[in-house]
């Protein structure tokens, strides 16, 4: 038995001061708790207890690139960031495009066991953009999200057939990394003032927007569920907003770094600010924050993309794209949402759970709900100086953040407990 005392608990009715009793994998009591003999007691000291966070966009680099991250270190990073479920992207080496590849990751994740790792399957065989991947087999093995993340499906005819096919598999969603490579070739940061200042070729906003516009048209045509990954421009936001208003089954996500930073941060040419999509203008950032508030963007997802120090300590144009995010996401999202707990748990837990079909996550803390929980202290300030992740390519390294994960509970077990006196 675990008792969390003195928490502000996120219930269906909102935040309520209460104690929470957990037995087995369930929350059994929310209210005034007196007896606590034999129970493990966690003193919340006014921190917020809510549903465990869910990140539908992480790169665990396993198999194939385990010097950057592996299932075990990625799981540690996830629980330290308050996550009880993550969706692992399939652009591993080899890519996750078959039942066998899915099962391998699922089985090894289960051995680690501290966080639910759902696997996204590739849309096309070997992520080559030429033929459909084995959707039925992967679906059978539990996959609900399919993506060639890292690349768009460039062939519109193929994507249209994929969307039509996936309509027959309930809950399946096409997740798109929106990037027209013919518009981004040679680019390394947002096409704009900072790119011009340095003479480095840019990645224009329109490279993302043309793909989203095409995909929305194809989704309308086929009736498929579409999820747009890491939205980064005001133009993308307005495309999605219009599509949602017309009743399309489209969802979208934004990364923490796009919520907090804009292209001015890249002026230092520090490769820890290099990723795709790139940090955009201040106006884009503002549009993303508003879109997250009004629901045009459904979820925060980190696009946690570990790269080693040696890989990043190279000239900016040679550095790989991507930054880590699992361990800092909650703090950044809390700030972006102005400390609105309801919006926070909706965008960080409930909505991503629905998108990825993770029904053991994202529920308010009520008697009977699954004990996937996070204890988050919104008032605690901290500076990330080291990470549980194997990599440290974070744009927030050494910066001051507010809001800290104090504990993570997965299926009724405490899988992470921060140092309360740190």
């Amino acid at each position: 038995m675990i008792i969390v005392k003195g928490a502000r608990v996120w219930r269906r009715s909102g935040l309520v001061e209460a104690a929470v009793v957990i037995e087995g994998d369930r929350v059994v009591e929310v209210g005034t708790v007196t007896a606590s003999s034999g129970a493990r007691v966690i003193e919340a000291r006014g921190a917020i207890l809510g549903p465990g966070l869910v990140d539908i966009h992480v790169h665990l680099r396993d198999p194939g690139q385990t010097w950057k991250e592996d299932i075990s270190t990625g799981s540690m990073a996830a629980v330290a960031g308050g996550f009880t479920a993550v969706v692992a992207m399939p652009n591993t080496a080899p890519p996750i495009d078959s039942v066998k590849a899915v099962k391998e990751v699922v089985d090894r994740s289960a051995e680690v066991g501290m966080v639910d790792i759902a696997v996204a399957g590739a849309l096309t065989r070997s992520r080559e953009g030429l033929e459909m991947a084995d959707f039925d087999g992967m679906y059978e093995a539990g996959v609900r999200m399919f993506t060639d993340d890292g690349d768009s499906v460039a062939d519109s005819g193929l994507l249209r057939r994929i969307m039509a096919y996936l309509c027959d598999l309930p809950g399946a969603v096409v997740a798109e990394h929106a990037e027209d490579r013919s518009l981004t070739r040679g680019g390394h940061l947002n096409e704009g003032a900072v790119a011009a200042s340095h003479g480095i070729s840019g990645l224009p906003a329109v490279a993302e927007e043309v793909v989203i516009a095409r995909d929305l048209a194809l989704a309308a045509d086929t009736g498929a569920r579409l999820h747009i990954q890491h939205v980064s421009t005001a133009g993308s936001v307005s495309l999605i907003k219009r599509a949602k208003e017309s009743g399309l089954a489209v969802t979208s996500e934004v990364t923490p770094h796009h919520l907090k930073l804009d292209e001015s941060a890249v002026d230092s040419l520090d490769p820890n600010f290099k990723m795709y999509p790139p940090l955009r203008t201040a106006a884009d950032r503002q549009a993303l924050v508003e879109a997250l508030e009004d629901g045009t963007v459904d979820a925060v997802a980190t696009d946690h993309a570990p790269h080693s120090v040696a890989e990043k300590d190279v000239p900016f144009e040679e550095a790989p794209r991507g930054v880590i995010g699992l361990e800092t996401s909650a703090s950044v999202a809390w700030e972006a949402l102005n400390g609105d707990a309801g919006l926070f748990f909706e965008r960080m837990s409930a909505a991503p759970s629905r998108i990825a079909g993770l029904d053991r996550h994202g529920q308010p803390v009520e008697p009977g709900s699954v004990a996937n929980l996070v204890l988050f202290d919104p008032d605690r300030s901290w500076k990330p100086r080291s990470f549980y992740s194997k990599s440290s390519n974070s744009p927030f390294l050494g910066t001051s953040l507010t809001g800290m994960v104090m504990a993570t509970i997965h299926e009724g077990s405490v899988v992470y407990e921060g140092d309360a006196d740190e």
Partner: protein
Amino acid sequence: MSGLLTLRGLSRPVLEDLLDSAERYGKQLEGRDKESSELAGITVTTVFFEPSTRTRLSFEKAAAHLGAHVMSFSPETSSLEKGESLRDTVLTLSALGSDLLVVRHGGVGVPGLVARWTGLPVVNAGDGRGEHPTQTLADALTMRKHFGALEGLRMGIIGDIRNSRVGRGHLWALPTLGVDITLIGPRTLLPVANPWGVRIETDLDSALEGLDVMYLLRVQRERGGAAGLPSVSAYAARFGLTQSRLSRLHPSAVIMHPGPINRGVEICDAAADGPSSLILEQVANGVPIRMTVLAAAMGAK
């Protein structure tokens, strides 16, 4: 000053001091006693990852005039071919006893990275499309010597500005020195944004007559400039300094080009070789400028 990585943010007095100092070195070079021993015992290593003749020779001559020992590194004769990383290469050059590195590389920001890795003063001799600071300073010196002052000079930079490190360096430093810059080129070769707030023109003929300085750039095929043009001849027709455009220039206007020049494309023979051309003065002024920058980098004087 410890090295020279960028001209961005340098104040007018700092830039003017550099030009004044270069002018003194220039006079010294014209006199009988050209050599000094300011950098005696110092090893200057030129580290050029991109091909260059004039810039490297100019730096090496400048170092020699100051009494420095010169080492020279080029990738085709090095372990880079055996897969050595950039970082390991420059750490080796540092360990060999270099006191100052002059770095040219195809990547923007590499000189700064090298300075961080080695802890040595580094002079940027051209970083990708970033900057070529000593070329900019040599051009500023050339204009100042010719016109007597830089304040109010109307300079047109014409051509592939998007891909030009020389053009970018000019944009950071010359407005600070009072030069009034207009960028002239097809939209596909202009910078993608204008953080400098300079005037932009896509029609050379309407801008031609108001210029004191015609600064021509070549189309940087190696950096993709040609992809922004239907053809080289189309470029020459719209933006080349042809005989007929030459005749429409203000009589006191000058023609400049950082080289290498493509005759018949951005510049006709009569313009390159005529009395209004300062192209060879630009090359000559590179030496005292580089003496200044090397001496300043080592804290001499």
